[in-house]
C-alpha cells in the first residue's frame, strides 16, 4: 500500500480532497489498486456547475469494472482536469498529483474538516480491507 499524503482529506468512498481555496479532488491509491488498470475517466461536470457532496461527478472504468466518482464537498466546480480524457493511465501513475479530477470552490470551507485525515483514513482502510 502506498503512503497516504498527510496534507489531504479523505472520504469513505476513497476520494481525496486537497485543502485550499480551490479544493482539488481525486481518488486514492487504495481505490486505484482495487480498480486495476484504468481505461476511461468520464467527468460529467464542467466549470461553473454546482456540485453536491455525496453526488456523482463522473465515472471511472477499469478493465474489470466501472466505478462512480463522488464529490466530497458541496460547491462550485472551478476546474476539470482535461488531461484524463485521453490519458486515463495518469490515474494509475500519479493518483494524488497529475490525476486530480476536478477542483471545487466549497460553499463551506470548514466542511473539509469533517472529512478524514490521513491517520483516520489509514485506520478506515484497515477495517475496510477485511
Amino acid at each position, binding site marked *: 500500500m502506498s503512503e497516504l499524503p498527510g496534507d489531504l482529506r479523505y472520504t469513505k468512498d476513497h476520494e481525496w480532497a486537497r485543502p485550499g481555496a480551490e479544493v482539488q479532488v481525486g481518488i486514492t491509491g487504495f481505490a486505484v489498486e482495487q480498480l486495476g*488498470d484504468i481505461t476511461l475517466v468520464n467527468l460529467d461536470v464542467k466549470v461553473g456547475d454546482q456540485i453536491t457532496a455525496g453526488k456523482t461527478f463522473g465515472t471511472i*472504468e477499469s478493465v474489470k469494472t466501472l466505478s462512480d466518482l463522488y464529490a466530497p464537498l458541496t460547491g462550485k466546480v472551478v476546474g476539470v482536469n482535461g488531461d484524463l480524457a485521453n490519458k486515463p493511465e495518469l490515474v494509475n501513475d500519479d493518483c494524488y498529483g497529475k490525476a486530480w479530477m476536478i477542483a471545487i470552490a466549497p460553499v463551506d470551507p470548514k466542511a473539509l474538516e469533517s472529512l478524514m485525515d490521513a491517520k483516520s483514513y489509514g485506520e478506515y482502510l484497515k477495517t475496510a480491507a477485511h
Partner: protein
Amino acid sequence: MNDAPLRRTSLYAEHVALGARLVPFAGWEMPVQYTGIVDEHQAVRTAAGIFDVSHMGELRLRGEYAAHVVDYLVTNDAKKLVDGQAMYTCSCNERGVILDDLIVYRHTQDDWLIVCNASNREKMSAHFARAAKDHCQFEDESDQTALVALQGPRAFEILARAGGDAGGLVELKSFHFRTATVGSVRCTAARTGYTGEDGVEIFCAWDDAPALWRTLMEAGKPLGIKPTGLGARDTLRLEARLSLYGNDIDETTNPIEAGLGWVVKVEKGDFIGRAALMEIKARPLPRKLVGFEVTGRGVARHGYPLRGLDGQEVGICTSGSPGPTVGKNIGLGYLPTAMAEVAGEGPRDMTAIGTQFLVDCRGKNIEAVVVKTPFYKRAK
C-alpha cells in the same frame, strides 16, 4: 448465492505467495489478478500465462454404454471422436436451451471425461449421473482433479524445459490429449484452452498441482511466464469470442442464436434437445449474438441494454470490456435480426456487420457498431 464457506484449490497457497487478489467465484476463492489484468493479458499474448482452473468440474463415465450416454447428453457428435481426442460441445435440455458448455474427452470407447463449468457442476453432475444410471458407471472426480492451463506462444518451450516427457506435447494436435509427465508429475495434457492462444490444459491429482505449478513457473521464468487470474482469462476469451456461461449463454439461450450452431449436429441421431433445435433451425432466428466495438466513449458491460439509433431498446449486452490486445472497447450482445426501421425501408437485420446502434451505459447512450468476430485471431 448461499453462505457456504468458499472452497480453495490446492494452489491457494501459491496464489497468496504470488500476491494474488482473491475473489469469490462460483463458490470458490479464486485469483482475479496478480500483477494486473492488462499485464497478465499481454503476457499470455506474447509469452505465456499459467492459470489455476481447478474449480472446473470433471465428470467420468466408464463402461460399454458410456459413449452412448455421453452422446445422448451433448449436441456435438461424440461418435466422431477417436481415442485421445476431445471436442467442444453444448449440453441442452429438451427445449434446446443451454445447460452448460463442455469439453468431452474420449480416453477410450469405454472411458469418457466431461469438463464442465464450476458454476454448473452440481447441475451437470446430477444430469450425467441420472443419465448414466443403469447404463454405465458415473463418477464426479472434481474434488480429486486439479486443472492448470498453460497458454501462450511460448507454452511449448516452457514444457520442453519442464522435464519429464512434456517436451513431446508439442506433437499433440489441437483438441487431442494424452498422459504425460511434466517434471515429475503424472498428468493428462490436452491441447485446448480458453484464451485464443496455443497451449495446453493439464489435469493432475488434486495434491500434485502445487508441484506442477512450481515446475512450470520455474521453467517459464526466463521465458516471461506470468501467473494469470480470472480477470485476464475473461479479456482473453472475449477477444477470441469464446462464450462464457452465465454471461453469453445460459438456460435462456440456444446454441444456434449464440453462434454455436457448429456444435449442434441434428443429423447425428437422437440427443436431448434435438427436436427443439431442429425446429429452431427450421425458422428464421429472431435474434443473434454478435460482436461489437464501442466507438463512443464508454465500456459496455454485461447486462447493459442495447438500443437502436432511435433509442428503442432492442437487445442486451452479455459481455463487454476493454480488449487489451485489440485496443478497443469490445463486447458481445444479442441483437434482433429483423427490426422495423424508419417508414418505408422495411425490416432490417441489426446483426449485420457494420450496423450502428447504441449501448445504454447506465443512462448514457454510447455509439457502437457490429463487427466481425473473433476480435483477435493469433497468427498461425
